């Protein structure tokens, strides 16, 4: 896979998912990790985590993906690939406003959202088979889930606490 193919792939996935970062995870997992094998699961998760704990859109983790594969040109082109469709859409917004109220479009976007949830959870299980192999990893997983979902903690704080917990468990177990 070359840089242009990666950029086109990310632009396509971004369009398909309406720019939703987490929904792109199963798509990137299938094409970059399992398909062409240019990326590892760990790299994908690392890129996603960086984007979650730093300011900016959730789908900007693809810039890390581009950077890890092709350096700075990769980061710039993948960022453009996720930003440009939004600007291209501006002249078409008037037409979209009419379409937005169509029951067909509402049904289509709802169908995409619903399917995305199933796909993300399937990707999580696939990744978890390789990532959650130790008890300490499970503890960090559940702790982060509780901190962010139940206690509504900021992702950065949750990651910091989970990191300390992971290090302590690693020494202790």
């Amino acid at each position, binding site marked *: 896979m070359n840089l242009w193919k990666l950029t086109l792939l990310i632009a396509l996935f971004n369009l398909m998912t309406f720019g939703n970062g987490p929904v792109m995870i199963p798509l990137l997992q299938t094409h970059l990790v399992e398909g062409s094998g240019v990326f590892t699961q760990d790299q994908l998760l*690392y890129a996603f985590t960086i984007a979650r704990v730093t300011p900016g859109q959730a789908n900007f983790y693809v810039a890390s993906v581009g950077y890890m594969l092709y350096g700075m040109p990769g980061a710039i082109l993948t960022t453009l690939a996720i930003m440009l469709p939004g600007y291209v859409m501006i002249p078409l917004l008037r037409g979209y406003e009419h379409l937005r109220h169509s029951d067909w479009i509402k049904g289509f976007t709802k169908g995409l959202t619903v*399917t995305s949830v199933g796909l993300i959870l399937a990707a999580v299980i696939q990744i978890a088979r390789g*990532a959650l192999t130790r008890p300490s990893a499970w503890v960090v997983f559940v702790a982060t889930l509780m901190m962010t979902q139940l206690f509504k903690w900021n992702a950065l704080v949750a990651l910091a606490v989970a990191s300390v917990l992971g290090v302590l468990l690693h020494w202790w177990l």
Partner: protein
Amino acid sequence: LLPIIIMPAALALIVVAALKLGKDVFRPSSKSVMAGAAFAFALFLHHNPALLLLAGGVIGALVLKDIEAKKERGEKQEKGAGT
């Protein structure tokens, strides 16, 4: 330490994103059936997620459009009755 700290935490963040995205998917409905089918097709039958996503959109346009329209009308009526 990366596999012990970052990977499990990243997975948890992805799960949280999925939970936020599909608030109404986790109740028994046609949406939960669609999400379950996408999950099964991707995990057990290893179908391409891009194609599943498009298929989900098309099925949504055909099946969910009436349900969503009905729901919206109900919400509007409720709002009207409230004011």
